[in-house]
Structures are given as C-alpha cells and as structure tokens.
C-alpha cells in the first residue's frame, strides 16, 4: 500500500547516503545508484500494473484528509510517466557510467537521484503547491547536473538556464497565489470542484491565474516564445544529462495535461478559451522553429536540442485540441519523443568524444573511431526524430495528424507538420553527410601525431544506444496494443470526476474568500 511513496523516498535516501557516506568511492556510488534506479524501475512497473485496472490510488501523507493534507495520486497517466522516466533513467545512468561522464565532476550520482526524486514527485503529487516544490527539487538538481564537469561555456550557459528558471518559478508562485486567493485551496481535486462552482462574474482573477499557470508550464515545456533557455542548455550540458533532460520538457507537457483536464478542463466555461486558444498557434511555431533550427545548427549538440524543441511542438499540437483521441496520440508521441531525443543526444556524444578539438561542429574532420557503428546509430536516431518510416516517429506523426482532423485549421496544421518534416530530413542529412562522409584524412599543421584517432569507451555506451533503439522499435512494433492502452489513459483523464471522488469523497465545502469562512462546513 505504501509502494506509491517509494519512487520519491528511495532516490531521496540514496542521494543523501551517496553525498554523506560514499563521497570518495565512485565504484560504490555506481553500484548503489544503479541498484536504486533498477529498484525504482521495478516498482514503477508494479505501479503501472496496479493502475492498469483503472483504479486511482490515493496516498494521504500523514493520513490527513484531502484538502488539508498533501496527497499522492496514482492514475494511469502518472504510472505511465513514472515508468517512462525510470526506463530513461536506467539507460542514461548506464551511459554515464560506461562513458566515464560520472567521474568528470563531483556528485553526479547524488544529483542524479535527487533529480529523479523531483521528477517522480512531480508526476505523483495531487497538490498544486507540492507540484511547485517538486519542480524546484528537480530544477535545483538539474542546475548541478547541467554544469557537471565544468568548462567556461557550460557554466555560462548554466547561469542563463538558472536565471531563466528562477523567473519561471517566481511566475509559478504568482499563479499559485492568485489561484489560492480566489479558491482558497491548492489541492488539485478540491480546486477542480471549487472552480466548477465559482460564480461567472467573479472569474477575472481566476483567468489570470490559469493563464499564468499555462505560461509557467510552457516555459518548462520550451514552447515558443518561451524556449530560449533550451538550445544552449541542452547543447552545453553533459550528454547523459541532456538525455535525462528529455523528460524535463515533458514534465511541462504532463502538467499542462493534468491541470487543463482536471482543474481548468475543457468543460469549465470560464477558462476554456485560455489553453485551447493559445496552445495551438504556439505549438505550430514551436515545431517550425525547432525543425528549421535543425537545418541551421552549426553543431550536432544544438541540432539535437532543436530536434527536441521540434518534437515538443508536435506534442503540443496533439495536446492543444484537448480531446481524448488527440491526447492518446500526444501520449504516444511523448513516449517516442523521450526515447528518440535521449538516443540522439547520446549518439551526438559518441561523436563528440571521438573528435577531439573539432568537438561536435558540423565540419569536415578526421574520420572518427568506430565510424560505421556510430553513423548507423546516428542514421537511426535521425530517422526517429525526423518522423520517417519505419520507426516510431512516423507512427506518432500519423496519429497526431489523424487526431487533429477535427480542428478547423487542420490543413494548416498538416502543412506545417509535413513541411517541417522535410526540413528536418534535409537538416539531419546535411549534418550526417558532413560529419560522417566528408571526412578529411590530410594531417593538419597544428597536430604532431597525424595517425591519431581518439579512442573512447564504446562497449557500454553503444549497448545503451542500441537499448534505446530497441525500445523505440518495441514502441513501433507494439503500437497497436500501446495506443489502445493510451486511449484508456486519455479517457481516464477526461473523466475528472473519477480523480476527484478518489481524492475527496466528501461533498465540497464552498469557501467564501470575503469572510474567510466556509459555508456548510467547518473549514
């Protein structure tokens, strides 16, 4: 019964123990941290199985009743996101160990566990302020991870990232304050009930709060025009960290899905026009900017970052209609996007590790070691991210296009998706041919040892990449059963009364902000 708390508690304990007791033992850190990640993966699989029945599990911390205490809620969407995170985390961690990234700075494994704790918590919590707290936990761990290993440009990009996210956090607090001032609660189920009961004339403040929340989640999800933190951060972060960050933008997408189906759902008239109206144009611009960025990037790292912006755009296109069919497509695309982005970042790192001073610049350079293997992996990752058959990006895109056919602007949406796919293919093709085929063997004057090719560990890193590729293939092959499962998940999202009755079985107490007392209850 307490299993639901373990994805939060276990990484928290492990992170603390790693800092306190295992500071100087990299091997022990690796063993314990990997064991913890595997254990959490097993737990999340169990939770996925538990949520599969459609039952919503509620865990009341300290056994306080719902609006007063904090609740953890496990429904199908939470369980899906937890499992996805756990799979990603295991791959990223093995890559970090195999490539030696975790030894290039301090506290990689501790920060990694704290970051996972924040992500798992954000997916599980049923309280809006608690969501803020878990956002901060995952952010503060990500600040440390982002500058792991140091370096001048990386730290400067890190400062930019931190400042941008501090502003986002401030905005989140303003949104929460506004919503609390209107409704008198921050428990999401309780919020949903009270928002539905608010009189129509008293809603301007609530609309401000709802719009601010959308802005905050758009910053997290790197939706244009709030994406500026992403390209430099992802391009400069250590590769395993960038791959783990693939789930962080999805935390924003998850929060949009959760809040704008449960609290400000499509049937709530006073806020119905906020998310629905603004998200779709922003998503289209995000997709276009991301894919054009792939074509324009001068470095493979930036290219991968823009590919992940583009995939966020497609994801948001599928979220914006707020219908169960479109949301099911969005969830499929989300799984694909997390795995594909992670694979691309790791493959880019395989290249960068072997090119020495040329780093990941898209220029003519000496052929790298393991050229055939790495170029094949890059090819597969590019196909995935560009949305070409036969991998999951293609199926995801078809599902998204099918889901938006009900929209009035569907020809425009289709046009943007298809044209940007072409741009992405050209961009990936240009970068791939330059880096892998237009190699240059003539010695340069500034190098003494002309026969040198840089060796870097290949065994475990390549295995992890093939693991991600296998997962993508699995998502593709099993797309039939998977979409059926995701349809059930989306249907559950659009039946918020299930969530509300699970969290708060008692009838609502209407809060009167003017007098500070509750009518019909002892609030």
């Amino acid at each position, binding site marked *: 019964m307490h299993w639901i708390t373990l994805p939060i508690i276990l990484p928290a304990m492990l992170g603390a123990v790693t800092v306190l007791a295992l500071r100087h033992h990299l091997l022990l850190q690796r063993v314990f941290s990997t064991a913890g990640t595997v254990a959490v993966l097993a737990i999340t699989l169990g939770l996925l199985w538990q949520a599969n029945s459609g039952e919503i599990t509620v865990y009341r911390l300290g056994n306080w009743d719902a609006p007063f205490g904090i609740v953890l809620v496990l429904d199908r969407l939470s369980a899906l996101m937890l499992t996805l995170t756990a799979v990603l985390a295991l791959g990223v961690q093995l890559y970090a160990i195999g490539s030696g990234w975790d030894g290039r700075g301090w506290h990689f494994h501790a920060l990694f566990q704290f970051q996972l704790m924040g992500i798992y918590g954000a997916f599980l919590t049923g309280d809006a302020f608690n969501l803020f707290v878990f956002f*901060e936990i995952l952010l503060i761990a990500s600040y440390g991870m982002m500058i792991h290993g*140091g370096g001048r440009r990386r730290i400067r990009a890190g400062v930019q990232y*931190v400042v941008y996210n501090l502003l986002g956090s401030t905005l989140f607090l303003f949104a929460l*304050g506004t919503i609390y*001032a209107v409704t008198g609660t921050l428990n999401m189920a309780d919020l949903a009930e009270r928002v539905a009961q608010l009189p129509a004339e008293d809603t301007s403040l609530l609309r401000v709060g709802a719009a601010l929340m959308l802005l905050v989640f758009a910053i997290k999800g790197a939706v244009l025009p709030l994406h500026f933190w992403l390209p430099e951060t992802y391009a400069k972060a250590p590769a395993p960290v960038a791959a783990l960050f693939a789930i962080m933008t999805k935390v924003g997408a998850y929060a949009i899905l959760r809040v704008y189906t449960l609290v400000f759902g499509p049937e709530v008239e006073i806020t119905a026009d906020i998310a629905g109206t603004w998200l779709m144009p922003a998503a289209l611009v995000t997709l276009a900017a991301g894919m054009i960025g792939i074509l324009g990037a001068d470095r493979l790292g930036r290219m991968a970052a823009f590919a992940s912006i583009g995939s966020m755009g497609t994801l948001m296109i599928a979220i914006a209609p707020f219908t169960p069919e479109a949301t099911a497509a969005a969830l499929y695309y989300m799984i694909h996007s997390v795995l594909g982005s992670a694979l691309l970042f790791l493959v880019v790192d395989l290249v960068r590790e072997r090119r020495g001073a040329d780093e990941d610049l898209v220029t003519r350079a000496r052929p790298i070691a393991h050229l055939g293997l790495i170029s094949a992996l890059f090819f597969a990752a590019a196909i995935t991210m560009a949305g070409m058959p036969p991998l999951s990006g293609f199926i995801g895109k078809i599902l998204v296009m099918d889901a938006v056919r009900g929209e009035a602007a569907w020809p425009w949406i289709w046009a943007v998706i298809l044209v940007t796919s072409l741009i992405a293919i050209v961009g990936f093709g240009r970068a791939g041919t330059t880096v892998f085929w237009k190699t240059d063997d003539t010695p340069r004057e500034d190098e003494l040892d002309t026969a040198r090719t840089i060796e870097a560990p290949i065994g475990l890193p390549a295995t992890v990449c093939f693991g991600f590729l296998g997962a993508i293939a699995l998502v593709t092959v099993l797309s039939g059963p998977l979409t059926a499962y995701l349809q059930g998940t989306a249907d559950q999202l659009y039946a918020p009364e299930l969530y509300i009755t699970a969290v708060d079985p008692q009838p609502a107490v209407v809060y009167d902000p003017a007098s500070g007392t509750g009518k019909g209850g002892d609030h």
Partner: protein
Amino acid sequence: MELLIASAVGFLAAAGIYLVMRQRTFPVIIGVSLLSYSVNVFLFASGRLVINQPPLLSDSATGYTDPLPQALVLTAIVISFGMTAVVVMMALGAFLSSKNDHIDMTPEDGRDSPPEPKSRPDAPALHEREAEEGPEEGADPTAPGAVPSPEGAR
C-alpha cells in the same frame, strides 16, 4: 494597508524586472531576489490581510487569519534562498572562468576550451585525484576553483 501592500508588491516586481533586464549577473541576481520578495508578500496577501489575529486555534481568539499562506511563504522563502545561493556560486564561477559577467552569450568561436595537444583519457579523473590528495574544502563542481579542470573543460 491594502494600498501599501499592493504598491509594495508592484514596486518590488517592477524593480526586479528592470534589474533582470540589465543582463549582467550582479543586477540580475539582485533583480531575481527582489522578484522573489515581491512574490512572498503577494503570497502572504493571498490569504486576505487580517490584523492582530492568530493563525492557530486558541480559546481567546475572536477570529483567525489564514495559516496556509504563511506556510507557503515559508517554503517559498527557503527555496528562493537556496536558489539565490546556487546562482551566486554559478555566476561567480562563470565570471572567474570567462572574465565576463554578461548573462547573454556572445557568439564566440564556439569552443569550450582551446584545443589540447595531448590525448585526454590518460589523465586521472577528478575523483581519483581527489582521493589521493584527500578532501579539500570547497572542491565542489559549483565552486569557482574547481571549474577550469582540463578533463571537464570540454
């Protein structure tokens, strides 16, 4: 009092936003701090302004103030305090390693470090070196001294 609180929140937020737009680390950090002060006062006011009333149950109380915003503000203060400490350390690290306190990134030649003549992987990792020399104060990746190590600076 409503006017006082509202104008204080507004002035703090305006000053904070102005400073954040200065694009140099010191004003930006001060600006972010001012913004977080303004949001703290704002959160405090979100439970309505009540004077001289206890937040917790007591027998002599004639009325109550909302205790929840006070708890929220406390959490927000702790978080913003920690975040400010982190951003100060990172800004120091960025300034000391690049001698430049601009937040925005100028288009440089794009390389993290000058090309190194020798091959990299033979050099001992940070952990091994530190284990030999014993722990030293502040040898943390966020500390400015640990920043320009040749292994990591890529």
